[in-house]
């Protein structure tokens, strides 16, 4: 074999060498645990003796679908994720549009708006826990001052999910704002000016120029917020622990409860598998929409 052939063979291997470390990482820390979890969801593994689980087929799933608590959990997860996307994306986009134009003190406003995203989830949850406090919380002081009495923000069946959502939106909206702001700043200035020349008012310019340009960024932000919401544990657990009466017990909270309170690792894995399917479905919808958009643009 000549030296040039060896060199050419080595060159062909270089790309594989570069992707090998992340592939090993994904195999060890993602695919292997995922495979294990999927298998575990087909067993009756308990936390007391995790290696002695017996294969029971789809038994866990059958129990899951027969359990009304699962549907309550699924409903809470979907409601939480959908509303977090709607409000988080709307608020983030509006904030981005507001600070896109130059005005005095823009840097300070931007820093304030980013505060929610910069604060760690646990710290944010504790801040909001204090604000929601029945006796000393700022919200109840405000409602009392307004003469409408006190509310059990985190203990009322009607208010618990909206209260958690408020905290979540406060956390995710700045992220959406950053993503949309980056997209806004790449909108070609001349196209906006062309719309002005063509007689478009502010709203028409937004619809005709700005929105189509920032739509992929909004879509991506919505996907991430949705997947994060399906996976979110810390804020919900710290604020309500899944209560009251399971109204905020999302799939992830349910996984913890099933695994560490009921000691049923097999069943918890089945909950996890449902969560995974949900997240994958959202990602698949995003990919389909994005592919269609690309095809439509290239037409």
């Amino acid at each position: 074999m000549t030296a040039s052939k060896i060199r050419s063979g080595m060159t062909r291997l270089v790309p594989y060498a570069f992707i090998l470390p992340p592939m090993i990482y994904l195999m060890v820390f993602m695919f292997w645990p995922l495979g294990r979890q999927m298998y575990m969801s087909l067993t009756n593994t308990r936390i007391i003796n995790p290696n002695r689980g017996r294969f029971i087929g789809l038994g866990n799933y059958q129990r899951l679908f027969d359990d009304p608590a699962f549907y309550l959990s699924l409903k809470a997860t979907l409601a939480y994720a959908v509303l977090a996307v709607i409000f988080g994306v709307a608020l983030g986009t509006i904030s981005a549009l507001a600070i896109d134009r130059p005005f005095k003190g823009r840097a300070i406003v931007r820093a304030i708006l980013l505060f929610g995203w910069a604060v760690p989830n646990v710290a944010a949850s504790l801040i909001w826990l204090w604000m929601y406090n029945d006796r000393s919380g700022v919200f109840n002081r405000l409602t009392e001052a307004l003469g409408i009495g006190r509310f059990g923000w985190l203990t009322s069946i009607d208010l618990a999910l909206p209260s958690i959502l408020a905290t979540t939106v406060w956390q995710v909206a700045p992220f959406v704002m950053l993503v949309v702001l980056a997209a806004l700043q790449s909108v070609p200035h001349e196209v906006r000016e062309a719309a002005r020349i063509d007689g478009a008012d502010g709203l028409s310019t937004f619809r005709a120029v700005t929105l189509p340009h920032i739509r992929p960024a909004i879509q991506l932000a919505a996907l991430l917020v949705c997947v994060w919401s399906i996976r979110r544990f810390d804020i919900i657990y710290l604020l309500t622990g899944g209560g009251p009466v399971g109204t905020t017990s999302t799939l992830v909270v349910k996984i913890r409860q099933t695994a560490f309170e009921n000691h049923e690792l097999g069943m918890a894995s089945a909950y996890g598998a449902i969560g995974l399917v949900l997240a994958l479905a959202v990602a698949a919808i995003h990919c389909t929409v994005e592919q269609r958009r690309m095809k439509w643009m290239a037409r």
Partner: protein
Amino acid sequence: MPALTFNNVSKSFGDNTVIKAFNAEIHDGEFLVLLGPSGCGKSTLLRMIAGLSDITSGQLLFDKIVANDWEPKQRGVAFVFQSYALYPHMTVRENIAFPLIMDAFKKWYHLPIVNIVARHRLMRRKDISDRTLQMARQLELEPLLDRRPSGLSGGQRQRVALARALVRNPALYLLDEPLSNLDAKLRTQMRSEISALHHKVAKTFVYVTHDQVEAMTMANRIIIMDKGIVQQVDTPDEIYDNPANTFVAKFIGSPPMNLIPASIRPDGLKLAGQIAVAHDAAKPTRREATFGIRPEKLRLKAKGEGRLPARVSIIERLGAETVIGCSLVTDRKSDDLLIEQDLVFVRVSGNPRMQIGEACSVDYGAEDVLWFDSDSGERISLKSE
């Protein structure tokens, strides 16, 4: 068509003044070209006409009415951008129809759902769809109507931008370097298409470019600008034959006008500091001036036959003609001679058999010489001296 008048119009960005006391009038139906090097303020001026940039001081009048604060729509202008500025997610048809849809758009169409329905109905409205189709046919875009800008070539995009500008039948067309993104061949083609379009629509065109060929071939009048100041406003012929100053003389023409420092003596001239030349025609009365002559007015002769001894330094063969850069033979060191600004360019027809380094001579007709002030660069009128 509005007559446009600029009264001492200035534009500053902070402390940086980019246009200084601009005064001009744009006549009905003319093709006016704003010409100048990059950064001279010509695009800023165009944007001020369109209402896209504020006027710092002075007045811009549309039909003798001050229009400084008018919205772009109110001015009834069409603008073709350098980057075409097409709406990327819209088809060619939607791009062309957009100004018409905006004209027919009512405030309450902004309501959700109503907006989508209203736009679709407006797109299908007979007058709008007919006018869109007419413009597409006029610019040979009919087969491309359902394509998006990303699937079009540069020339096709350019034509869509023009169609969008034309569709509303505006009174004034503003074009900001619309050909600068095209290759040389397409640029030549689009140049003639825009000229033909101007004749066809018979409206006023204000065209910004830094390309003198575009300016010379398309304009009825040219405004030459440098550093925010108007250098000359005139027809292409006048600007070429009678430049107002050395900036215009050097900016127009390729190669530019030869400008040689001259000492004027009663019996003749001393050019480039060394060469004594007999010059019996009229000449400035001052002692120092700049001697200017176009390359095609110079005559290339064999050694000793012309008044200016020279040596061939550069030969640019262009096929039908040849541009020869000669260094005048002076006492200076030969190392200094191959600097382009020191060369005298001669344009000759055909393809003369000459070689670099060959000794030759250059001659001129006294009637072809233009004189400029050595300090200010302004043209010297021999009649007034």
